[in-house]
Each structure stands twice: as C-alpha cells, then as structure tokens.
C-alpha cells in the first residue's frame, strides 16, 4: 500500500475541529498562516442535519430512535445534533476490569461543541492554585490574571449571557443580558434564598442580542438539536466559518489521525492519517501542529506517535501523557412541586438550558471534603418526550382515564437538580494504549482506568443533601432514592458521563512532571501544541469549554508570535 504524501507544506496542521481546533484555526488563519485541519468526522450541514422545531410526531419513532435505541442512553436522542456517540462501530475503546467508563465522541465538524450544554464558566483564581491552597493536586503554570484577557476576548466574540455578581469563586465576565427566570427557577431561587445558598443567573454561550451578525436566540429551548440561526455557540458555526473565509484554511473531513511523525531534528514534520472514504493512508506536512482532538484522543495520538526519539510517545518524556485523567463529579435528583400545579399553561421554553444556577457557595467554610461543586437545575413544562411518564406509570399503575389524568396533572411539576464538582487527579485514574486492540483503521485504542476517591464520594453525599434541602424548603417532595453503598454511592456518576475529561497531557513548569508549558507548547517538541482539555492541570467546579477556548486563543497568539520570530 502506498502512502500518499501531500507535496504542500502548510504552516500549521490542526487535528480536531472542536473548541480547541476551531479557535486555533480562526486565530491562526486570521493571523496570516496557511492552515490545514483534519477532522475525524464528516462535515455538518445545518440545512439538512438539524431537527430544530421538529415535533416528536413528525418522526415515526417519536424521538426514541430505531428499536428504541435512545431510551437508555443519556443525552442523545433522535433530535440531537448528529454524530455524538458513546459507541462507535469500528472505533472502540476498552476499560480495565474494575472500571466502567463512558466516553463520548462527536465525529463531525465542530466536535462536541455541537452537543454541549453551552455552560460558560470562568475558572477562578483559586482553581489555578489547588496545591498551594490545600496541598492536593498541582498548581497550574499560569494564573487567572494570565488568562483573564482571553476570557474577555472569548466571551466578547462568542457571546455569553450572565450578570455581574462579584462571587469570588465564580468570576464575572463580559456578559449579554440573561433571559428572565422561568417559574421553576423562581421557586428554586426562593428556596435558596431561605437556605443562604447562592442562586444567580447562569452564564451560557447563547446570545440574547445580535453578535457579529448572528441573530439573537428565539427561545425554543432546543439548543442540543443544533441552532439554525447560530444563536448558540458551536465551533462549526462560529469558528470554522471565519477561518474558511480567510481563504487560508483547508478542512479535510473524514480524516482519522494516526500519528504525528517526527524528523531527525526532533521537530514534528507531518501527520499520518487515514482517509476514511478510500481507506488510504495519507500524510500531511506542516511546520507546526496544534492538537485539539479532545483530551483523551489527543493523548492517544501522542502515545501512538512513537519513534526512536520518543519511544513512549511524542512529547512524553515525562511519562504523564494519559495520566491525571479526571471527569467532573456528578450526582442528580428530582422532586415534585405542588405549587407548579397552579401555574397556567404558558410557553416555558426559554433557551436550551437553565436561566439560573447555583455557583459553589460554601467556599467560606470548612466542609467534609475539599474543593466544591455547582448545581444545575431544570424541569417544568418542556416539550413532551418519550420516557417522560415512565415514573408516573410505575407509581400509579392502572389504566384508563384515571391514568391519563394523572399523567396530565403531574406534567410540568417536576424539577431535577444536578451537581458538577471537582475531581482531584488520582493515581488509579488514567488512560493508556491497549496493547491488544486496534480500531478498524489499525490505530491502537485507549484503555481506561477510572476510580473515584473518598473526596468525590463525600462531595456526592453533600450534593444529595443539598438537593433534598432545597426541594423540601420549597415545599416539594424529594423523590430520588439514594443508595449510600454499592458501586455508585450517593448516585455518583459513571466516569466519563459528565463529558469533562481533562488532564491527559497536562501543562506545568517542570518538564519532568508535565507535557506542556503554560502556552500549551510541548516541552519536548517546540512545534507541537496541545490546546484542548488534555492541557488542564485541574478540573474544578466549572465546565471546561470556555477555558479551552481561552487557552487555545492564547496558545495561538503565542504560536503566531513564535512563528514571526522564526522560533518554530
């Protein structure tokens, strides 16, 4: 088999088209560089691919999918934007015998930014200084002050709504006005006030005023389906188009990167990849490389890039690649709120996400556990969906008009709450190359090891106590049964399912204990950058995407500067 080598040498080859790759593409092309981007999935066409405004009854499967496949999978249903998968035929991953890990990959231009919840939270000062604060984990090699200008730039460019609240653990940003609270949020807010729990407008990457020609949101609450008006943020609709518009961007879809090839001079020279359509191996050459394939895929790419110079994988002389893997601590519950029965029928939709949230509020006291969590909540009269009345059917049993009425009367009166907390890296949680398994492209796959430690379990316990307290303070009934023992005590989530994998090629000042410097540049290979979640040193109680965007913008600015100096 002949490997097809492209004659052209691009300035930069970007692997991955999501938050990290998309941001790098925009900054680097606008900065004058010729960029080629490899994306493992196909292109996205909002005209054809988005099911925004489709009713369940417009689909024969009503949202449940063929054979009802979506009944038991979180997040994904027939309506969601395409190509988010926990299981990809031909592209498996494995887990150690004592591990359950669910790994979501979005094989499509824009990656997981087509599917994310748009929660855009800045990391706080203390989040960059974990070890200095309480001796656990490590400090970042950068500070909040280093990143703050980039948070400003990102929020201004993509548009984030919120309000300035002056909460130390939840820094304020550049905000558009938030939408008004729903009835459900009004109830939770009141209960939180009585419990001295902070509850403020949320910060979401959804625009409530026109931004850069993108119309404002029209409040259909279907963000996860994709947005035809680009009123929420995705890389596919907000970062890739301006990059393409420069005329300096080549996007190669259906390209599965296999390894980064290194020359005798120790610099990366090319990416070898499989063109999925023809199943041919190709190489693309560039002077510099930005890896943004998502934390674990980026680690996988580095680990598979073995050479005599880098027998343990590109940029892995420290041995940290694949290590320090974390996901957010998750736990959820729900309650029934009789006061919602009195609300007249009205349009409850709003944006596709919560209008208010609970930022970490117990930062001023000693808790049973270190670090913290935020709480998201939602419910009320959303678009009816399959599976929605399972619980009431199991509770009420029976059949006939009485059952019909019970479903009707209970509709819209539930609110669910979910905690998202900080996981401190531990030695039992990491990913590595499985020596026995390769995918259908002949690329060795990842094997995951995942374990919660006591700190996370205590945090989940606290989350459950918080949910119950809020629901009961509001006069509701907390309906969730909580096991305190077993594999998932206090309903702690399965590893990976919160979709915040981070840390697998972490940055640091010491090349013996980190893979990258503060600009996401590999210590070992100066012309390789990893700007996605792999670079993170900690996984605090804030969703990572806003920080990925900021880090990638900052790294891209640095790359431009280094390129001008001729240092790459």
């Amino acid at each position, binding site marked *: 088999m002949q490997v097809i080598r492209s004659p052209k040498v691009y300035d930069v080859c970007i692997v991955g088209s999501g938050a990290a790759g998309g941001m790098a593409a925009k900054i680097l092309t606008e900065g004058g560089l010729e960029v080629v981007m490899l994306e493992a999935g196909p292109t996205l066409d909002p005209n054809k691919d988005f099911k925004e405004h489709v009713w369940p009854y417009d689909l024969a499967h009503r949202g449940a999918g063929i054979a*009802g496949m979506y009944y038991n999978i979180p997040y994904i249903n027939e309506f969601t934007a395409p190509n988010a998968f926990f299981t990809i035929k031909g592209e498996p991953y494995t887990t150690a015998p004592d591990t359950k890990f669910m790994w979501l990959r979005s094989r499509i231009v824009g990656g997981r930014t087509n599917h994310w919840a748009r929660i855009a939270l800045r990391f706080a000062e203390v989040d960059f200084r974990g070890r200095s604060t309480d001796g656990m984990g490590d400090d970042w090699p950068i500070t909040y002050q280093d990143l703050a200008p980039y948070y400003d730039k990102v929020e201004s460019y993509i548009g984030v709504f919120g309000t300035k609240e002056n909460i130390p653990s939840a820094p304020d940003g550049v905000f558009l006005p938030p939408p008004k609270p729903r009835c459900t949020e009004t109830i939770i807010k009141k209960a939180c006030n009585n419990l001295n729990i902070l509850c403020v407008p949320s910060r979401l990457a959804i625009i409530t005023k026109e931004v850069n020609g993108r119309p404002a949101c029209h409040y259909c609450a279907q963000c996860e389906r994709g947005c035809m008006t680009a009123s929420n943020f995705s890389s596919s609709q907000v970062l890739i188009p301006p990059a393409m518009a420069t005329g300096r961007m080549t996007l190669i879809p259906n390209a599965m990167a296999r390894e980064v090839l290194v020359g005798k001079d120790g610099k990366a020279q090319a990416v070898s990849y499989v063109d999925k359509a023809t199943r041919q191996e190709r190489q693309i050459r560039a002077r510099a490389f930005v890896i943004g394939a998502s934390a674990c895929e980026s680690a996988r790419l580095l680990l598979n890039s073995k050479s005599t110079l880098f027998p343990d994988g590109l940029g892995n002389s420290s041995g940290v690649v694949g290590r320090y893997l974390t996901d957010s601590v998750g736990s959820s519950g729900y309650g029934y709120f009789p006061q919602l029965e009195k609300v007249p029928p009205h349009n409850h939709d709003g944006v596709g996400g919560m209008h208010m949230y609970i930022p970490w509020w117990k930062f001023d006291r000693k808790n049973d556990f270190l670090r913290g969590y935020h709480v998201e909540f939602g419910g009320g009269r959303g678009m009816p969906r399959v599976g929605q009345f399972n619980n009431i059917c199991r509770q009420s049993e029976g059949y006939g008009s009485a059952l019909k009425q019970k479903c009707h009367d209970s509709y819209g009166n539930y609110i669910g709450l979910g905690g998202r907390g900080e996981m401190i890296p531990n030695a039992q949680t990491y990913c590595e190359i499985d020596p026995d398994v390769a995918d259908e492209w002949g690329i060795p796959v990842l094997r995951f090891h995942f374990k919660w430690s006591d700190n996370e379990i205590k945090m989940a316990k606290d989350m459950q106590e918080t949910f119950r307290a809020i629901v009961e303070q509001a006069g509701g009934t907390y309906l969730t049964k909580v096991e305190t023992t077993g594999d998932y005590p206090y309903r702690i989530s399965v590893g990976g399912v919160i979709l915040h994998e981070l840390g697998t090629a972490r940055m640091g000042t010491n090349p013996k204990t980190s893979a990258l410097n503060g600009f996401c540049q590999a210590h070992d290979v100066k012309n390789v950058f990893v700007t996605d979640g792999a670079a993170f040193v900690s996984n605090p109680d804030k969703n990572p995407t806003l920080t990925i965007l900021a880090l990638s913008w900052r790294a891209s600015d640095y790359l431009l500067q280094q390129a001008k100096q001729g240092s790459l």
Partner: protein
Amino acid sequence: MSSEGIDRRNLLKTLAAVPASALIRLIPRQTAEAVHNTVQGAKARATAGAYAPRFFNAHEYATLRALCQAIIPPDGRWGGAVEAGAPEFIDLLTSENEDYQQRLGGGIIWLDATCQKRFDNVYTKCSPVEQKEILDLIAYRANGEKDPSLAPGIGFFSLLRELTADGFFTSKIGIEYLGYMGNKYLLEFPGCPPVPGL
C-alpha cells in the same frame, strides 16, 4: 418589543433581511418550508389508508389497538392512544427490537390464552366486563404477589402502558392535551406568568 410567537414563515422572512455573512449559516426559507412540507407529506401518506403492521399479525394488532385504547382512552374532547397513533409507534419499535418482540408478542399471546381459560374467548372477543376483569388484574404489581401466574401479564402490561403513554403524549393530540405551548419563535422570553404564592 413583542414577545408573542411569530410563525416560521415570518421569522424566516425576517432572517432573510439580515445581511448574509460568512459567519452564519442561515437556512433559506425555501429549504425550511420544503423540509417541513416533506415531513408533513410523509405523515399524510402514512395515515391515508389502513396501516399494515410490520411485526404483529392482524389479530395481534387488533388486540394491541384495543389495549392501547383501554390504557389511554378518548374522553371528553380529547382523543385517545389509538387516534394518537400509539399502536403504529409500538408496532414499528417492536418490529426492530427483539426484546419487545418477546415481551409484547409473548404478552399478547399470554393474554389470549388466559382469557381463553377464564372466559372461553380471546381478549378481543370477551365482553367489556370480562376485559375489565383481566386488565384490573394485570395492571397492578400487587396482584402478582397474590397470584404468581399473573406475572407474565403484569410485566407485559407494565411495558405496554409505558409505550402507550409515549405514543400518546408525543402525538399532536397528546401534546395539546398536556398544554405544552412551546416550540415557537419568540423575540423575547416573557418569564413566569404571575401566579399567587409562587
């Protein structure tokens, strides 16, 4: 600024006035309407003429319809599960899902056998009183504790009840019955209507 819903046609006219830009991909009005009409057209073709079940045979499908109707009947001004298309939805899923084939297919046969034993007739040929009697038994888990021979029917009915609810509450009738008022285009989100005590 008005916060009333505006229909899709008007919104897309408004959007067309926004300067086309490389930064956004707007769905052209013609394409949106074409997609909408195609979906509606497919639905219309599907409902015109009798439905030919993909998995259940004619008798089983008639039994399925009768059960769906019993689980969520029409009442007052509101239609029931049959009018909402629940039997078609259930038949479609069952034709694709082997687990449902076993549990629902087997359940209908169990029901007929049980009715035959008790009432000397298959379910659809039993009187309304007899039908009520058997459904009252299999609609409640507690009855299985008293009479374990009911267990297969109870498991069957529990699954059917949930799928029937899904088929009803995701239909146009069901969504209107619930009073869901969303899936519109709003220029502003109006928030929570005034409710005493909220």
